[in-house]
């Protein structure tokens, strides 16, 4: 079943085109990886999918579970099941993490006609999930992402994913900056959340993550275009040959 279908998507900022025509189809049950050098447009794609209005969408269409995704407000996209784990999670001083997470969970529940969780039930749910990510409970008393280490921020993103339980998760460089132990925790969390009826789009700069999260498909994004797609062996080939293989221009005519 088609979950996400991106067709000829073009987007940019202030007249500068960043995404130059992306085509990508993701079915339920699949894990896709997007790799590419810095500046190729990976985060732009992720943010456009999540509804960041700093980017102008020029041409193309995105269909998510049969709906025109681009027509939906960002909050509706996540309530409908498209979740983005940010490459750079935003710090919000003064907003208590528990309070924020409960507001998020209840916003999604209410959208689906479910009753809001009270503080006690929410805490139960959260305790399960923080254990999965080996996060310290004291983090929940702090302000959202404020003073979190790099690794804590990334694990907190996956905690949010676990709480919101999306149909489609887009992970933007969730592995970047993590040491190998933290990487394993994050990968384990992501793998645990994988089911036959959901899908994941893993954006990464490094092949390393794909040792732990095994993708069904790998796409190489360069200069706003998907220049090559293949199976998981493509990631290894990329690792071996380096991004020069792509930037040298060899692939662009392919």
């Amino acid at each position, binding site marked *: 079943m088609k979950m996400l279908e991106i067709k000829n998507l073009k987007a940019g900022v202030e007249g500068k085109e960043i995404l130059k025509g992306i085509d990508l189809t993701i079915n339920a049950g699949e894990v896709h990886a997007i790799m590419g050098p810095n500046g190729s447009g990976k985060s732009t794609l992720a943010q456009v999918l999540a*509804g960041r209005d700093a980017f102008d969408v020029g041409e193309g269409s995105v269909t998510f579970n049969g709906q025109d995704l681009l027509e939906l407000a960002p909050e509706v996209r996540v309530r409908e099941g498209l979740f983005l784990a940010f490459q750079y999670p935003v710090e919000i001083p*003064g907003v208590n993490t528990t309070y*924020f997470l409960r507001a998020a969970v209840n916003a999604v529940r209410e959208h689906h006609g479910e009753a809001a969780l009270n503080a006690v039930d929410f805490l139960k749910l959260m305790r399960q999930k923080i254990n999965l990510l080996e996060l310290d409970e004291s983090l929940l008393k702090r302000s959202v992402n404020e003073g979190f280490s790099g690794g804590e921020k990334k694990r907190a993103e996956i905690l949010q994913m676990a709480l919101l339980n999306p149909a489609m998760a887009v992970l933007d460089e969730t592995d970047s900056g993590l040491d190998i132990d933290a990487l394993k925790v994050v990968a384990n969390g992501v793998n645990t959340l994988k089911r036959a009826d959901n899908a994941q789009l893993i954006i990464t700069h490094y092949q390393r993550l794909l040792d732990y999260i095994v993708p069904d498909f790998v796409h190489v994004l360069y200069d706003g275009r998907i220049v090559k797609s293949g199976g998981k062996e493509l990631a290894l080939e990329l690792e071996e040959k380096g991004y020069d293989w792509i930037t040298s221009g060899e692939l662009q005519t392919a």
Partner: protein
Amino acid sequence: MVAPANNAVDRLLAALPKRGDGGARFAELGFPTTRDEDWRFTSVAPIAELEFTAATGDAAANLEASVFSEIDGPQLVFVNGHYSSELSDLDELPDGVEISNLAAAVFKPCEADDAFGALNAASFTDGARVCVAEGVCFKTPIRIYYLSTGGDGATANIRNHITLGPNSKATILESWTGADSAYFNNAITELSAGDNAHLEHVKFQNESPAAFHVAGLHATMGRDCRVAHHSIALGGRIARNNIRARLDGTGIEAMLNGLYLPHGKQLIDHHMVVDHLQPHCESHEYFNGILDDHARAVFHGRIHVHKGADKTDAKQTNKNLLLSDNATVNTKPQLEIYADDVKCTHGATIGQMNAEQIFYLRARGLDEDAAHRMIMHAFAGEIIARIGCEPAREELDRLVWDRLEDK
């Protein structure tokens, strides 16, 4: 027609009771003007235009719906600058804790180098006196209420003395509220914290939006003391806080923590001078403001690190959130450093809602309105969270939330 300032001085002095120099110093200084560097952004012309009368006591005044009412302990109440023994409750004070009105105590004349201070010295009626003796740790918060029920131009000069002996500890909660009229409160609080004293001082200023409020806090701190002053400023057409902190001992930690939420045509001004006179002291100033409509705010933070005050750590931040295009903020940090090995930082921001934060919250399912409120609450919450006295903190958090929701 704007009355000439000297005329205003005469009218004001004629209306008020007199003591000390009878107002000579105030007459000499006159009302400050915006040519005065310290008053550049705050014109007091609307005060000078008032038809002044001396505020008088009011037996009908009551404390209904007052803040901090759930907190037990001593309370001092002043109505229009006059002590109310009916509303005050000073029973069962422990040894070493003296709380009374000032008029009942012996008072020595004071000098003032600014006009409002001189006015206060010449015509104050009463105020709070709190003395905590050496080594006494008084855990119960001391509440002081200032109610104003007078009409337009009703003027009260209030003077408070707070003295903490060495190694003592206290919490003081102040509340300023009033009727919906253009009254004028001019207060001076002399605060002295002895060596190793611990004081938390919370000022909740929620005067009428038509009223005028000028308040000086003159704090002198001894060695190793810990003083936190929280200024939660909601009210007043013009509300000006002159905060002077003298860190005159080594190892002091002083915090000035403020939140101001002007809307309509309000102007809320915090004018701080922090003097570091001795080495190894820390001062932290945190001020956040949320402004709506045509409101204005002024933040002036001067830090003076005197010769010999080496290893000073002075930090100052002022963050402003503008909810309207017509709101304005003037923020002016001023650092003067004459010592060595000093850490001084200051930062000021003035802006709209942070778009990245809003997007992050929306990407987690909150609608735009809920996201805006959460950020706004956070902005205020950051300051409120520094209040140590838990019941006061929780109540102020609710009051501020209601105020922001109301807008």
